[in-house]
């Protein structure tokens, strides 16, 4: 990896305090993937970086150094995207948590990067959040090489609209023996999902459960914080 990177298209995923006055910034850049940068003095009131390192805003970042600690030295706001507001903010945090948990560091994924930007733009434009999130989850799983073939069963048989299927970790989709088994998915839903047709509410609902199962499997231990936050808010 180069010692110096200039003006890389990037998104800030998360910032944390680092040492006395600095910030540790997790970024997702189009050409360099996910990495951590140190914004030296980034917590000082007069820091010019401080106000620019906002999540969900398109940025152009420049850094130098290699290894675990790279130093961020310039951040330019690219503009053109309104803030995520209200309930869509938690969708943004969810996308970031997925990337922080699932995307290995320093692995460039331009397709995923573009999908991330498109998802934020769609959320800002007021598109149904569920639809935006499901579409992103699919791209993420595909890009990670985690996407199970959802157009066929583990045995290689095509998915049929009238039948029902279960998804099993390590195996994939298996046709259920008898009707409406718990946690089974309608073949028609799977067909719509792979075709990217989200027009039916049942497709959104079914794919939400399936995506959740797939993501949970790849996350391993540990609940997603963003999901827990929504559960806790609902109890207030």
């Amino acid at each position, binding site marked *: 990896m180069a010692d110096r990177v200039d003006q890389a298209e990037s998104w800030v*995923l*998360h910032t*944390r*305090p*680092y*040492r*006395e*006055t*600095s910030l540790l910034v997790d970024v997702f850049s189009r050409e360099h993937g996910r990495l951590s940068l140190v914004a030296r003095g980034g917590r000082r009131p007069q820091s010019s970086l401080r*106000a*620019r390192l*906002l*999540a*969900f*805003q398109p940025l152009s970042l420049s850094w130098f150094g290699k290894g675990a600690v790279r130093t961020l030295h310039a951040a330019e*706001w690219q*503009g053109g995207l*309104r*803030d*995520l*507001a*209200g*309930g869509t*903010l*938690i969708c*943004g*945090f*969810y996308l*970031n*948590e997925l990337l*922080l948990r699932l995307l290995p560091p320093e692995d460039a994924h331009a397709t995923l990067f573009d999908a991330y930007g498109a998802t934020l733009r769609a959320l800002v434009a007021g598109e149904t959040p569920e639809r935006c999130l499901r579409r992103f989850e699919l791209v993420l799983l595909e890009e990670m090489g985690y996407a199970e073939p959802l157009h066929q069963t583990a045995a290689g048989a095509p998915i049929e609209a009238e039948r029902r299927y279960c998804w099993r970790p390590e195996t994939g989709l298996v046709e259920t023996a008898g009707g409406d088994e718990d946690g089974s998915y309608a073949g028609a839903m799977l067909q719509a999902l792979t075709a990217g047709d989200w027009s039916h509410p049942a497709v959104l609902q079914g794919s939400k459960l399936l995506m959740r199962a797939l993501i949970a499997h790849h996350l391993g231990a540990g609940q997603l*914080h*963003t999901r*827990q*936050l929504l559960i*806790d*808010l609902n109890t*207030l």
Partner: protein
Amino acid sequence: MNATASDLPEPLAALIDGLRALPGVGPKSAARMAFHLLQRDRSGATRLADGLRGALDRLIHCERCNSFSEAPVCGLCASPRRDARQLAVVEMPVDLNRIEETHGYSGLYFVLMGRLSPLDGIGPRELGLERLIRRALDGVTEEVILATNYTVEGEATAHYLGELLKSRGLKVTRIARGVPAGGELEHVDALTLAQALVDRKNY
């Protein structure tokens, strides 16, 4: 600092270890601070020790605003001169102080002592949001002013507080953001200007 903890006299090792409790202070900084206090500023060290001991022994959280207080209800919350119909929600005590310095607000406060920070695992439970809801539903409060930061975490906090409080019949407002006082557009950063345009108001 190549000396290991075991080479140091026990009280010095304990001091260095204690200073590491400060956010962002690693072993080297902690050792530097300890030597500075002991060698160059012993009266400062005494003030620090007394200040810490006093704060630990005497400070509690005010029942009303959740900020630090010596009494169960702090002076500000107990003052008859404050307008109890307004309640400003801030993240930290320092934010309360900043608003007080403006001399432009006479209502009361609630200090969250943090913000929702989903990626750090700080949710409604960790933040104790139900205490704020109870406080705001005292029957006197009419308007809750959300004065959390304009960061993504502060915005998310404001959004969910707004939803929770509005659904309980309270009027909820949010402090405005935009071009700073005395600000010339030429010198305002682009992001601030873009947000000021989005948040423009009837005139």
